[in-house]
């Protein structure tokens, strides 16, 4: 039943990614519609607007959440493609192990970056 668990979360992650990417597109490309994501003048990617979003806990948590599910969804998909290559069981186990370590490593790195940016944005807002 382990594969059922992996598959269920893979599908669930896909649906959540769809929602979060929609939010991302809204923030980046429909700034005029909702200024609550980019209150300062200029592009949504300008430094002032980026620091504004990074200072909000909601966005930091969302970034980390998106990172986690995107990594899981992508790496599980890659694992499925690799398993199509008629591999030996020991190689399949090794691939699962390597992908898990890679995913966790990238997640820790991305989480650290998101939290550090949040802290910088907060100190900038105070300073």
């Amino acid at each position, binding site marked *: 039943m382990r*594969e059922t668990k992996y598959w*269920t979360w893979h599908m669930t992650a896909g649906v959540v990614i769809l929602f979060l990417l929609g939010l991302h597109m809204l923030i980046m490309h429909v700034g005029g519609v909702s200024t609550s994501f980019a209150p300062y003048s200029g592009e949504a990617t300008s430094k002032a607007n980026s620091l504004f979003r990074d200072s909000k806990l909601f966005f930091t948590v969302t970034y980390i959440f998106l990172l986690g599910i995107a990594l899981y969804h992508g790496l599980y998909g890659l694992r499925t493609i690799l*398993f199509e290559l008629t591999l030996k069981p020991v190689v399949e186990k090794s691939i699962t192990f390597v992908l898990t370590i890679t995913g966790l490593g990238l997640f820790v790195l991305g989480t650290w970056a998101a939290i550090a940016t949040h802290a910088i944005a907060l100190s900038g807002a105070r300073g």
Partner: protein
Amino acid sequence: MTENTNNSRPITFHVTRYNPESDRKPYIKSYTVPVRAGMTVLDGLHYIKENLDPTLAWRFSCRMGVCGSCGMLLNGHPTLACNTQILHIADTDLTVGPLPNFEIIRDLVPDLMTMFEKHRSINPHIVRTDEKELNTPEGEFYQTPEQLEKFLQFTYCIKCGCCMGACPTLATDVHYLGPMPLAAAERYDNDSRDDGWRDRHQLTGSAHGAFRCHYAGECSRVCPKGVDPARAIQHLKRQLVLDYLHLARKKKPCAMLHGPGEGKLLANIPAAPAKTV
């Protein structure tokens, strides 16, 4: 067959030959067969055996698309030789090979044991916990037409192996259960008399179970009986996910008879013959 060749057209059969005792690998041998309208590929193979090469081996039995013995690869398409008219698929040449994804026993005879072992592993029969009722039945299990409809089409499978031969996932993963056993699992999981779905889910939800299917859909396209194994596998995936999330509808096997006759034999039906086993 040789005397009646009026209005016939010569078709060259390119047949895969292989004898594991003498050949290192399969090879193609060509035979020219005078083909008349209405001749099936099975008739053509009989012509070759009777008139051109008595050493050719293949498997057949019923000659009418019921037994599933003569599944083979005709012009690259897995299907039944008895169910396929030569002139429907060939103008001048016809390639005839054994079903892919199986070991070859000889010539056009695939070794279907791997398929039957996988089939057996999913418990392709009614499983119930009330052993007493199974061993000494006192009535019938009532099943509505709607309940029957849920799994009826999957009962038409004749285990010919065409879907297994067409499956691209099975071509890369020999341990994958394959369309036929998975469709059989779906058939029994949906049977209202059955209570063995938990055990089946252990296997169908494993690494080589339903989630290996990429929905190429070739199994359903080639099935000579119109069964839709790809659909069965998608149903199975949905059921496995709902089961994992504890969202599956609680299913209890139907109790013994609460239908017409209340489980008792009607007055005008004679008694069953005595048990012989």
